[in-house]
């Protein structure tokens, strides 16, 4: 995080705000709810309180303007610059302006007003931009589901650096960017996708492209806003050019950026007994899908669309050396790569044995 140079801050903690000019794209009631929720994000992490007033001079004035609006920082029409805000202080200090020529929404379509407003209010309170891509104060817009949004740890640290700890008896904590080269790094799920490999972790995934040196970290919600965080298993069915993602008893089918209609569905469709309510890992190989649950696995025949008889079997009985619950698995060149904790095991399906054991984060160029 970065505190604004000169450390401007409000001397009082019971701040007032006033909406001077509304957008024509959302009802006043919706705007007021969004603005109040955006302030609440900061109130939860600090000792600050925010009260809406409709008359008189507020600490933080909020308005939607087009183009040049007299503050020496003209807006630029749709996209580009979405909004700006001023550091704490008298007059224009603390004020937040939004570009009326953007499309303002309350869902995943560009641009979600809650996310932009919460970011701008960080400036109104004395924060500058953060270099942490996960942080709310990162300058680039990235969609995250508002209904489940919690302030990232970087922003909590920032606001508390200015105003001290939260007045909540239990100090709030928030998500942090996963550190690719943390030797303890584990993955939630892994799937190939048209030659790439996707490594899922919490609300993010790393994208490894065979011809790109860098491994790219993204929010899951950036590509698939309707998907939940914490994907537990994933596999690619190259014959159908679909990726299947699992969380709990639900699963989704992705075709590139699109979630196939009619999803999520229940995993009982695969023929699992009702006792199975979640999948640890999954991988597709030669017309069959292998599902790993605790110390057992199932084989699903994609042609016949039913489970093979005689399953589940014990994992170690078929894959000697894979003795624990599997976090994630994917297939490459007739080798199953099993990820268990911070280690992966390359199981050669032809030699029928483990041929390599390495740190999981080697796949992230660590």
């Amino acid at each position, binding site marked *: 995080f*970065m505190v*604004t*140079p000169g450390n401007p801050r409000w001397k009082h903690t019971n701040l007032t705000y006033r909406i001077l000019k509304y957008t024509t794209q959302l009802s006043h009631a919706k705007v007021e709810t969004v603005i109040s929720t955006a302030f609440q994000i900061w109130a939860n992490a600090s000792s600050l309180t925010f009260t809406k007033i409709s008359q008189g001079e507020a600490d933080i004035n909020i308005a939607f303007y087009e183009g040049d609006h007299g503050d020496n*920082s003209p*807006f630029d029409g749709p*996209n*580009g*610059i*979405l*909004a*700006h*805000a001023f550091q704490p202080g008298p007059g224009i200090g603390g004020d937040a302006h939004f570009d009326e020529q953007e499309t303002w929404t309350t869902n995943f379509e*560009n*641009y979600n007003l809650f996310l*932009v407003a919460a*970011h*701008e209010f960080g*400036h109104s309170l004395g924060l*500058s*931009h953060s*270099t942490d*891509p996960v942080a709310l104060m990162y*300058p*680039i*817009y990235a969609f995250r589901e508002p209904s489940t949004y919690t302030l990232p740890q970087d922003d909590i640290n920032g606001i508390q650096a200015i105003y001290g700890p939260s007045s909540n008896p239990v100090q709030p904590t928030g998500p942090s960017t996963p550190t690719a080269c943390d030797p303890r790094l584990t993955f939630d799920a892994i799937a190939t996708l048209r030659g790439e490999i996707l490594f899922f972790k919490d609300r993010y995934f790393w994208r490894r492209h065979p011809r790109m040196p860098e491994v790219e970290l993204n929010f899951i919600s950036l590509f698939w806003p309707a998907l939940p965080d914490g994907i537990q298993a994933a596999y690619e069915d190259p014959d159908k050019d679909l990726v299947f993602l699992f969380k709990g008893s639900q699963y989704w089918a992705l075709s590139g950026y699109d979630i196939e209609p009619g999803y999520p569905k229940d995993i009982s469709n695969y023929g699992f007994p009702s006792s199975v309510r979640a999948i640890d890992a999954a991988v597709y190989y030669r017309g069959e899908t292998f599902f790993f649950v605790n110390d057992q696995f199932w084989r699903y025949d994609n042609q016949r669309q039913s489970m093979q008889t005689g399953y589940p079997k014990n994992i170690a009985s078929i894959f000697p050396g894979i003795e624990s619950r599997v976090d994630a698995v994917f297939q490459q060149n007739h080798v199953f790569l099993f990820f268990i904790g911070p280690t992966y095991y390359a199981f050669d399906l032809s030699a029928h044995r483990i041929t390599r054991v390495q740190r999981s984060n080697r796949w992230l160029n660590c």
Partner: protein
Amino acid sequence: FPVRWESPEEETTQVVRNYLERFYQLPRGRYRSGRSNGTSVVVDKLREMQRFFGLNETGKPDEETLEMMRKPRCGVPDNGD
């Protein structure tokens, strides 16, 4: 009047100059293609922007840098002022 046609290089120059002036305090009017005196300032500002976003600090408007410049964002400068 004939529409003023901008070569791709000029368009890139425009994008880079606007971005660095707005978000990295590049002095206005400093960066016009072909002029040498302002180039080192621009290279420094480009590197500062690339460092902020964790990009390769080439000092050049390469594709990943231009892609980042085109993303929708907040209008407040990145070095805080």
